[in-house]
């Protein structure tokens, strides 16, 4: 038996240190503005986590995760927008009770597909189901026909482009290029206050850890091992009696669902959703976070996302025009020099020393104990 425990020692260390960092250290030392930035970064960590499953383990590179992130975010935004567009709030509009951008676009009644978003329960279901269903349709269409690798990546990128164009074009239904702004309350609870932001931060960390545990659970099942096997020897898996397409669809759907949860969190944290988080560029950035963190590492993905986004904020605050070059350079450097990302550097250079230290200490303490017990006249074990 190799891995009977849920986390091995280094994973447990990763889990606990991440928990300590996110749930204790950052909230203690950061002001609300910075904490809210971290919360924004963490919404991308959900996407990165999904990419670890789908790209790292399953070998399916998707350059369109922004679509699922956006879908999750828009579902959340639709609920919040409807709540903010009560008749009392919108009485100056020509049609009160519908979102402002609809009114500006001469739409006079709420479209059918908006109606379910009056209910929070249905909204939560939509956040989880709609993006997953889309991923299922794309996955079934592609993987059943054995479209994979670069071709799949290009198609997902095209879908990201299409989604952006669609959202911008259908201004009356989606808010167009501005997105859905001016979101205020969640079931009557004002989400714009500092207090709400802190609570939402802790809620997000909680959901993130739930997703991390889910990802780890999947990784440790036979399905996780089949994903790894598939990445290397697709034919062998097929000729061991598995339908490779179905496993790919599963991995892609799981990644989509994680991304959608991240998107919904984003809307709650930042208070708006726009097509600029859906398109090609954000989708590729999300892949870079995963690559920097280490595409094989669940924890690496979270650290990578935090680090790249922190660097992005720092750099774009001081040298806004340099950021894109920095990001490109970072990606090239990671691919060329650290193909396993941060987690690879950690494993090869840091974890080894820690292991040696632990081994030394435990052998030392054993020795000390043996000497002591010999001196006491007790039989050494």
């Amino acid at each position, binding site marked *: *038996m*190799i891995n009977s425990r849920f986390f091995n020692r280094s994973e447990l260390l990763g889990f606990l240190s991440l928990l300590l960092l996110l749930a204790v250290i950052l909230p203690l030392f950061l002001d609300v503005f910075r904490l809210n930035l971290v919360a924004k970064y963490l919404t991308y960590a959900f996407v990165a986590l999904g990419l670890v499953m789908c790209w790292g383990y399953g070998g399916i590179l998707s350059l369109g995760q922004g679509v699922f992130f956006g879908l999750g975010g828009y579902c959340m935004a639709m609920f919040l927008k409807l709540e903010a567009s009560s008749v009392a709030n919108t009485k100056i509009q020509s049609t009160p009770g519908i979102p402002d951008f609809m009114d500006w676009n001469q739409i006079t009644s709420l479209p059918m597909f908006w109606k379910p978003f009056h209910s929070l329960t249905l909204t939560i279901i939509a956040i989880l189901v709609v993006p997953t269903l889309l991923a299922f349709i794309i996955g079934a269409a592609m993987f059943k026909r054995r479209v994979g690798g670069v071709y799949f990546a290009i198609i997902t990128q095209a879908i990201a482009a299409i989604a952006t164009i669609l959202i911008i074009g259908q201004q009356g239904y989606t808010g167009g290029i501005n997105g859905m702004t001016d979101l205020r309350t969640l079931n009557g609870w004002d989400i714009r206050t500092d207090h709400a932001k802190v609570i939402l931060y802790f809620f997000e960390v909680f959901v993130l850890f739930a997703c991390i545990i889910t990802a780890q659970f*999947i990784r440790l*099942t*036979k*399905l996780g*091992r*089949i994903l*790894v*096997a598939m*990445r*290397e*020897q697709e*034919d*062998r*898996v*097929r*000729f*061991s*009696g*598995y*339908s*490779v397409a*179905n*496993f790919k*669809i*599963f991995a892609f759907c799981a990644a989509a669902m994680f991304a959608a949860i991240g998107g919904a969190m984003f809307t709650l944290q930042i208070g708006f959703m726009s097509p600029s988080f859906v398109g090609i560029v954000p989708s590729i950035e999300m892949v870079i976070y995963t690559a920097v963190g280490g595409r094989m590492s669940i924890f690496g993905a979270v650290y990578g996302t935090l680090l790249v986004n922190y660097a992005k904020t720092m750099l774009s605050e001081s040298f806004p025009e340099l950021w894109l070059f920095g990001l490109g350079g970072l990606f090239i450097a990671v691919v060329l020099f650290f193909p396993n990302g941060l987690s690879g550097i950690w494993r090869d250079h840091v974890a080894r020393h820690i292991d040696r230290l632990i081994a030394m200490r435990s052998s030392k303490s054993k020795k000390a104990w043996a000497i002591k017990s010999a001196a006491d006249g007790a039989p050494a074990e």
Partner: protein
Amino acid sequence: MLIGHQPKEFLLAVEGLTVSFDGFKAVNDLSFYVEENEIRVIIGPNGAGKTTVLDLICGKTKATSGSVQFRGTELTKLKENQIVQAGVGRKFQTPSVYDDLTVFENLEISYPRGRSVFGSLMFKRDAAVRERVEEVAEMIFLKDRLNMYADVLSHGQKQWLEIGMLLIQDPDLLMLDEPVAGMSVSERVKTAELLNTIIKNRSVLVIEHDMKFVEDIAHKVTVLHQGQILSEGTMEKVQNDPKVIEVYLGH
């Protein structure tokens, strides 16, 4: 009412099998039959279509025309994984094992249970799985390497591992593509021994060039040449067939 001679039930009946790649017929109107518990060896010069025949049976390549019946089931209409589930196992020419998984995990994946997405999510590594994996690992000489990653195994060990993966799958028809190619002499002897134990209670279709090895194991030999059958029968008959000597054994 059954009167007179009844046709024998074949395990595998290949009839009129043809595949054409852009007009080139790699396999041309091929028919042969494999009985239960028969060991059939396919030999032939390079490019005769031997590997293509296995590809056609296991669904890797789609036939242009003809039929492959396995226990009365038409295989040409099934997907690869359905063919495996029907009871056909295939070993590839180059060892294809999962380098990033351990020997144990390699064998476990081939264990015929939990093959659907949700089945594999719910799959439990219970005593039955563990015992079977250990039993097979012992047969393929890898018992003390269960926790090693497959990428550190030697070429011969990888071949054995793949044979073990097929063994755990427990197919009724086992297809092996050059199982001893690239092996050292001692590995070859061990492999022959291994094959002799695993071919019991099942039919085997083997492609092999090593004539000594073929003589040791074959019940019947099929000689392929340019996608067609040149000769078929016992090793002795085939070896003395002047056509076979001319195109293949004579060299």
